[in-house]
């Protein structure tokens, strides 16, 4: 069992620090650089030279659906330019928590949110805060790719600009190219930007969704199991993307796949039945979990 954990953690730490983009292209699941990975474990989560900078924070965040509790009293820091992974068995509240971070629950029937979600020190649930502005600063990518069905690839990407009145084509062109490059999709679609977004493959559609979220230049990107409906190759492309993107945006990713959490994240939070059980640097959480439930989960005894 220990073997498995080492493999996982080695992959996790190897990518951001040592893997070149070529080796990642050749296979995101490569088992190389184990020894190098182990040295990586000793590092603290905040690897940036400037040290950890708090971008978001939740304090005692509780979400109710009617009378049932989705998550209760979750306090978590979210650091700038780092990837936070939320893991746990299904129904544990990780998605509920994620959706509270950009006020997606505003539209859910009977959902109520208490506690606070701070973005740069300001509670996004304050009455004077406009959810539209918040969602422009905190983007979201969903489980299933959701290209707008009637729009071209181009229109999909710039939807967040065009549909709020930005009509300047040079700006739109620039943003479209930048976002598609960020999402590593530009080269594949640059010759058919006018064809419908739904004509792309599943993996491409998901990267299109990411490009669309990035087009409005968000500071934080929330990803709700972004690879769960994709094939392994598309999954590894998205994971590569996350490594690139974290230099520009802060990422929170929900995943049911522990290896994925280990591979892509700097910090990990483990949820169980609506509670935050444990939070820590990914390497520590996967090798030396403090809680027995965390250990049971990551060693595959349940979930």
């Amino acid at each position, binding site marked *: 069992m220990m073997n498995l954990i080492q493999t996982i953690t080695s992959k996790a730490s190897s990518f951001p620090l040592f893997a070149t983009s070529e080796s990642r292209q050749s296979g995101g699941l490569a088992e190389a650089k184990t020894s190098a990975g182990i040295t990586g474990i000793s590092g603290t989560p905040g690897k940036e030279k400037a040290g950890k900078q708090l971008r978001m924070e939740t304090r005692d965040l509780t979400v109710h659906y009617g009378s049932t509790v989705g998550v209760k009293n979750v306090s978590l820091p979210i650091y700038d330019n780092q990837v936070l992974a939320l893991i746990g068995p299904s129904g544990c509240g990780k998605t509920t928590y994620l959706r509270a971070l*950009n006020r*997606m629950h505003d*539209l859910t*029937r009977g959902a109520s949110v208490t506690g606070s979600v701070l973005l740069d020190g300001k509670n996004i649930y304050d009455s004077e805060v406009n959810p*539209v*502005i918040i*969602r*422009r600063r905190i*983007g*979201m*990518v*969903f489980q*299933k790719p*959701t290209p*707008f*069905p*009637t*729009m071209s690839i181009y229109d999909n990407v710039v*939807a*967040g600009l065009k*549909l*709020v009145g930005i009509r300047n084509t040079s700006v739109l062109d620039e943003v479209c190219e930048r976002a598609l490059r960020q999402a590593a999709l530009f080269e594949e679609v640059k010759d058919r930007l006018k064809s419908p977004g739904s004509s792309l493959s599943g993996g491409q559609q998901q990267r299109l*969704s990411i490009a*669309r*979220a990035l*087009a*409005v230049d968000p500071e934080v990107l929330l990803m709700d199991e972004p690879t769960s409906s994709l094939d392994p190759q598309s999954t590894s492309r998205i994971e590569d993307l996350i490594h690139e993107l974290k230099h520009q945006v802060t990422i929170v990713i929900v995943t049911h796949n522990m290896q994925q959490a280990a591979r892509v994240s700097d910090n990990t939070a483990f949820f169980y039945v609506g509670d935050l059980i444990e939070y820590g640097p990914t390497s520590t959480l996967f090798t030396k979990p403090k809680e027995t439930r965390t250990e049971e989960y990551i060693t595959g005894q349940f979930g």
Partner: protein
Amino acid sequence: MKTLLQRNIRDRIMESLLVLSTIVVLLPLIIILVHVVVNGISALNWDFFTQELGSPSRAMQGRPTGLVHTILGTLVVDFLALFIAVPIGFGAGIMLSEFPDHKLNPTLRVMNDTLNGMPAILKGLLAFVLIVKPMGTFSGLAGAVALAFVMIPIIARTTESALMSIPWSIREAGLAIGLPRWRVVLSTVMPAARFGLVTGTLIAFARAAGEAAPLLFTSFGNNYLPNHWLGMLLGPVDTLPQRLYSLAISPYSHWHSMGWAAAIVLLVFVILCFGTARYLTRQKH
């Protein structure tokens, strides 16, 4: 316990009865369609589409008569009705599907179904009281309002189900990139539901276009083309179903054959709308 043979014979008998019933139901339809075409085709000439009806004597003297004023009047009244009904129907459909928690929704749904189930003639009476009485005259406008009352509940209902069929994830994706709800609905959800919306509108349009009862006391009918197009809206105007009724119950045989011809035109018009609607429904899947 019956023998297997008896049971199998019974099975065959029941199947034959079902086939027979189907034939009995469909045969009259075929007979009606054949009669309409056979009786009406001869009167469906150039005059029919270019001349006014005029007084009964005009037909008896053998002067050319037709229903051009009826066809124009029908187009004006039907499209004006559509123009009135679409915003209200779409609005109500959007309210039901996009604001699912609104307190008035259960009431709206019941009221809409009630309105939908009401005989069209009562919609004519309502339009008579609301429009004809205050205006002091029968008018194309009143007819359009009466037909809009027929269309509105159908459009509202089909709009609701067309919008509901669009996955909620599309709306969330729109909101997640910082779009306001109205933009999400108008620019992502409604375009995605366009087939359903057009289908529902067409069905409502076709259903209203075939109605004569609401028009009898609203647009009333007119044997001549109004002098001015405004006369179509502000004065009595002819429409196909109502004219067909008047021709059929008139004592003049020349008018009877014109009535059959009007039946062909009306039938083709209505079937075209329904056919397109059904074709679109099939395209969607």
